[in-house]
């Protein structure tokens, strides 16, 4: 199958392209005109197409011969308006071009940020409560909510087979400083709620979920969470990261109730001093605090039952892929860059 992948040069995009190629698909990888793709190692099955979804080049030609689209592109940098408008306008233009083509299959990468984290309970499945006021979750949440909304409308209008994947916190080599673990404070890494299990998905597992969604006919019409379900606690992730990434400084455990109380107090004080329209940094916004740190068991019935998908790699394998030697590097497996997982060390002892 020929697949158009947007955001193909991004952190997740490169892995998705690799996973699709490994599954035998021909990929048209869409990157921005000025992007230096570098030594991607994608090989002949990947055709690099250059266009910016937000404007400039016409997008219709991208769909020639394409049977499915994996839409990953999101504006990640800039102020709130840039993030929101860049994502929305790009998505709108892409879908308009797709509507003019014969392509009918769409896999959309959404996010956990579309959930209303003030209403999420102890367990979050694919049918969790969604934001009703999308800006409550910030610009990224608003952009992702609108992307989903547009995709559903267009799918209904044009008879597309749509699958929406909502990955949890995606991590991997080069992106392991996760907002859902805690906050860096000088030399201290604060870990909020060390025992809770954040909804993590390693980038290679997440990419494999996209491959699985594309491969499955049953996935059409489904909206599913993507989490690895390794049961890795925030404390363990922080410890492994400190060891694996050779991070300096100390890890400080902060009970979740204490962090939450601090946020509550900051909001009360701000309201008292500055009035109802006060603004605090994002970590102090209750919705965003809960998105990052809420103690929740996130699952995906859809991924497991509909797609029969399980995370490809264990946490140990993911940790090695992230903090171990670079693939193709000369480092020996037992050399100085080898990641010794805390759990493995304990087992050895």
């Amino acid at each position, binding site marked *: 199958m020929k697949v158009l992948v947007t955001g193909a040069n991004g952190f997740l995009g490169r892995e998705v392209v690799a996973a699709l190629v490994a599954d035998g698909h021909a990929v048209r990888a869409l990157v921005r005109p000025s992007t230096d793709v570098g030594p991607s190692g994608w090989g002949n099955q990947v055709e690099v197409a250059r266009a910016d979804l937000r404007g*400039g080049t016409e997008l219709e030609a991208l769909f020639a011969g394409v049977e499915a689209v994996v839409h990953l592109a999101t504006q990640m940098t800039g102020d709130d308006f840039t993030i929101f408008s860049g994502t929305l306008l790009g998505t709108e233009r892409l879908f308009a071009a797709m509507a003019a083509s014969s392509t009918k299959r769409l896999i959309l990468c959404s996010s956990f940020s579309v959930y209303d984290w003030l209403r999420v309970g102890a367990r979050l499945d694919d049918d969790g409560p969604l934001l009703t006021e999308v800006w409550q979750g910030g610009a990224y949440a608003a952009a992702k909510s609108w992307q989903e909304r547009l995709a559903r409308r267009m799918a209904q209008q044009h008879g597309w087979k749509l699958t929406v994947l909502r990955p949890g916190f995606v991590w991997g080599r080069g992106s392991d400083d996760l907002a859902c673990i805690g906050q860096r404070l000088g030399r201290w890494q604060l870990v909020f709620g060390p025992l809770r299990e954040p909804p993590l998905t390693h980038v290679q597992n997440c990419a494999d979920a996209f491959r699985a969604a594309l491969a499955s006919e049953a996935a059409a019409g489904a909206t599913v969470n993507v989490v690895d379900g390794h049961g890795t606690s925030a404390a363990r992730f922080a410890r492994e990261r400190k060891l694996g990434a050779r991070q300096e400084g100390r890890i400080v455990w902060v009970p979740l109730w204490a962090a939450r109380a601090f946020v509550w107090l900051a909001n009360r004080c701000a309201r008292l001093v500055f009035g109802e329209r006060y603004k605090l940094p994002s970590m102090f916004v209750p919705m965003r605090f809960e998105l990052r740190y809420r103690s929740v068991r996130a699952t995906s019935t859809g991924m497991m039952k509909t797609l029969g998908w399980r995370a490809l790699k264990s946490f140990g394998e993911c940790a090695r892929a992230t903090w171990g030697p670079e693939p193709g590097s000369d480092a020996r497996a037992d050399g100085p860059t080898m990641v010794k997982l805390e759990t493995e060390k304990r087992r050895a002892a």
Partner: protein
Amino acid sequence: MKAVLIGAGAIAREHIGALQSVRGVEVAGICDLSPAMAEATAEQFKIPRWFTDHRKMLAELSPELVHVTTPPGSHARLASDALEAGAHVLVEKPITPELSEMETLLELAARRGRSLVEDHNYLFNRPVARLLEMRSSGELGEVVHVHVSFHLAILGPGSRYVDPNVPHPCTSGPGGAIADFVSHLAYLALAFTGPSHWLQVSWRKRSESPLPADELRALMDGERASALLEFSSHAQPDGFWIEVHGTKLRARASLFEPLLAVERLRPGARPLVPVKNGLAMALAHARAGLGGLQRKLAGRPMSYEGLYELVRRNVAAIRTCSRPPVEPAAIRAANRLVADLLRTEKAA
């Protein structure tokens, strides 16, 4: 009063906030070429109707006031349609890229008996408004010279002005990205100097970028005083201020923070005058720093506070049929100066 907006870009959000803050004004509709942006903006700001065709919006809603917040190239057509539909119009700066289009619009507004206002928002920021009061009351003495300076790192990573993938609408015209800021420099200086009759301009490109120039310095002689207009993409930290040199005092107002720092002739022993001025300046800077932080935490408008005041006064002027807060003469003077400035970049 029923108001609508044409254009749902970044600046439109400030206009919506400003309009919704005026008692008795209902933002009844918003129009954008992108249906998604129009609908999303309407939903976010609780605007009841959204459109992708401005003529349809004008016909269906019959607004009394239209704000045009699209890129400059479309201002003439959209403002003209709004005036023809019988609305008062406030247009983002620059009112039009061409002077001839501006004249056509001003004539049309006069003919239709409607007000046409260009957004000169920074004139209404409190520190600048206070400077203007000081001039009117004679506290400044006679204005001798004005220095308007805008330092903004528009070449930095992530800047929309140097995005190689989607060029900013301003970057293709004369002056490049600086043209997007030069209106502010012009109307701020002209408010103190009077119309310009002599201009010497330096455009400079200090570093590699798609922009034709990244530094501008212009020495201008006006009817009442001289002015130095400056835009720098390199000087740091970011700042935007106007300094007015009068015969009785020198005052510096910031457009980014609520700062007005004044050095004045003071009675008493001469050696103590710099000390007194120094203390007064230090106090003003500390107060401005804290005031800016307080404003940010309170969710109040920051550098766009002047837009809120301009919109409030514009609505009041429409209601009372009095003179608009930015009069045609000021619009003409500012745009003529801008045209003269940009012409020199073409020549350079």
